[in-house]
């Protein structure tokens, strides 16, 4: 495990008595794409900010690129690229001027060429004189990514980069992320989209500031211990409210005309749905979403107990 570019242990951050990030451990190997998932307000952004030196943790320690998280924030900032959740480029500067600014503050050589290359790569070479603020959401996001990787960082942190972006642009964005990772860049990306999570090498699930699951998608699903049944047939989708809450059923949710039921034990599940014999039931793999909702409910229960 020599090539961990992110290795943080026990990260904790409190804002005004509220613990936003609680004892989070995270190890990411070079060149991998790690998806960072969790409900709103779960501490994803705060964790990312601590990793890139924008926040100092209240407790915990770690190294980013082998540099101490607390003492070498300046050096870390130079080798990490960070794309903020909200569009954070200068809307009253042109596309080219924005890129030039970031090239300058990172003290890059061959500025002109780098900016030109980035514009070419973006497909914005002809529109380089347009004001960044006038771009549409998808283009803004691509420009922000270009600015974040201009200095060829070793780690790229993306905070919900595809929120509000159309599917086509999202697809292209992810292709680009994979390309960057193949080039050796390590990517930590927070997202709410399950399809995006599935495009990551591994995922980390955080809720209420705590890391609840960690690993590849297969590992996370297996680790949850959930089993699932898929029911198809007339009126299957309308059964959800009747099945939900029965013993052995963790949750039941309609999916189109079908119904998806899951719980920790397969035989208990079968027993719970036995009376609805008009529907054909077959075993299915629980989805990532099932797992996350299940984990979140578990965490909720815990936090209630703690409170």
């Amino acid at each position: 495990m020599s090539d961990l570019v992110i290795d943080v242990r026990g990260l904790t951050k409190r804002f005004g008595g509220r613990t936003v990030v609680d004892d989070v451990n995270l190890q990411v190997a070079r060149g991998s794409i790690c998806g960072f998932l969790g409900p709103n307000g779960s501490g994803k952004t705060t964790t990312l900010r601590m990793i890139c030196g924008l926040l100092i943790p209240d407790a915990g320690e770690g190294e980013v690129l082998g540099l101490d998280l607390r003492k070498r924030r300046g050096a870390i900032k130079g080798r990490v690229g960070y794309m903020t959740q909200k569009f954070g480029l200068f809307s009253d500067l042109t596309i080219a001027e924005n890129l030039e600014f970031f090239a300058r503050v990172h003290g890059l050589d061959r500025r002109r060429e780098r900016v030109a290359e980035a514009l070419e790569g973006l497909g914005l070479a002809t529109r380089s004189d347009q004001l960044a603020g006038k771009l549409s959401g998808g283009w803004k996001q691509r420009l922000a990514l270009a600015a974040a990787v201009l200095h060829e960082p070793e780690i790229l942190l993306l905070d919900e980069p595809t929120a509000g972006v159309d599917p086509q642009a999202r697809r292209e964005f992810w292709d680009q992320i994979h390309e960057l990772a193949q080039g050796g860049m390590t990517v930590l990306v927070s997202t709410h989209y399950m399809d995006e999570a599935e495009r990551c090498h591994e995922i980390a699930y955080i809720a209420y500031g705590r890391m609840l699951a960690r690993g590849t998608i297969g590992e996370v699903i297996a680790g949850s211990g959930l089993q699932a049944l898929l029911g198809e047939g007339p009126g299957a989708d309308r059964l959800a409210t009747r099945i939900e809450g029965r013993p052995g059923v963790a949750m039941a949710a309609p999916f189109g005309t079908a119904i998806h039921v899951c719980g920790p034990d397969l035989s208990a599940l079968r027993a719970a749905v036995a009376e609805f014999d008009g529907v054909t039931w077959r075993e299915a793999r629980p989805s990532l979403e099932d797992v996350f909702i299940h984990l979140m409910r578990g965490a909720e229960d815990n936090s209630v107990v703690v409170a």
Partner: protein
Amino acid sequence: MVFKEVRQMLRDPGTIGMMLMMPIVQLTIFGFAINNDPRQLPMALEINDTSQFARSIDAALRNTTYFRVTHVVSAPGEGERLLKDGKVQFLVTVPVDFGRDLVRGERPQLLVTADATDPASTGNALGAIQQAVDGALTHDLIGPLAARAQGTPPVDLVIHRSYNPEGITSHNTVPGLLAIVLSMTMVMLTALSVTREVEQGTMENLLATPLRPFEVMVGKIVPYLVIGIVQMVVILSAALVVFHVPFEGTVALALFSTLLFMITSLALGFMLSTVATSQLQAMQMSFFYMLPSILLSGFAFPFRGMPVWAQWLAEVLPTTHYIRLVRGIMLKGWTLADAAGQLGVLAVMLAVLGTVAVRRYQDTVA
């Protein structure tokens, strides 16, 4: 709608505080601090005569509320030095053999030199000198000398209005205006520029770069310095060409002082921006700074007309010192040695403001 506005207003206690403070500060300044008929003006006496008349004049001048005799000088040139430094506003010189000449009816001269850079504050005071001298002498010219009190005044009161002999107000206000315009733009522009980054969400990106606080501050300040220089050129050209304000000192010293003042104001603006949480607040803070700068610095109203507390308050404002500098250099022909004191004060202010600003500027988010 009204409820929504009120709620939003209450959410921002800084703004409320400033809105409530504003009338109080205004009342205090206008009500208590400003006085267009300044009293207790510092005066130097140079008495080269030992007659009773000289003593009476001395006593009479000390008796009027217009003056406060702060220096009694004997060496020639010492009084002029005090005037130039702005330590006194008037110098009254009683010449040698004043008493003898008076008795002989030779109408001796009594020389009054006034620092007339601010004509408003000297007008009434000069009248008071005349009165005091007349009063003193009527008292003394009795018996055989009573005749001297009749007809033409027994003493030839020579009034010399230094630095602004014609008493032209614009000679005083135009250089002062330079100070006001510069502090207004410099402080406000920088104060807004950092809060704007925060409001538009570009700050987070800026902080994620390896830029150091000092570099951010210098980067924010330099462009405005250029604006300040343009403003200075415009105002100084107008002062010289349109208003014919004299320019007694050296251009280099004026430039140096102005640069120092601009950088100090910019650092102040930067510091305000690290305190303000929104552009609105930054705006209000700069306004809050401008108010005393205009009213107390000696720009709009005579500095010496203010009570001591207001004078001390004004001493803390960079504008006050810069106004003294620019007036001293333009009207009184200050050299580097004359200006050193005020320049030193500005340099100390810059050091303090710069340090506080860099310290307060955080390289982490919220």
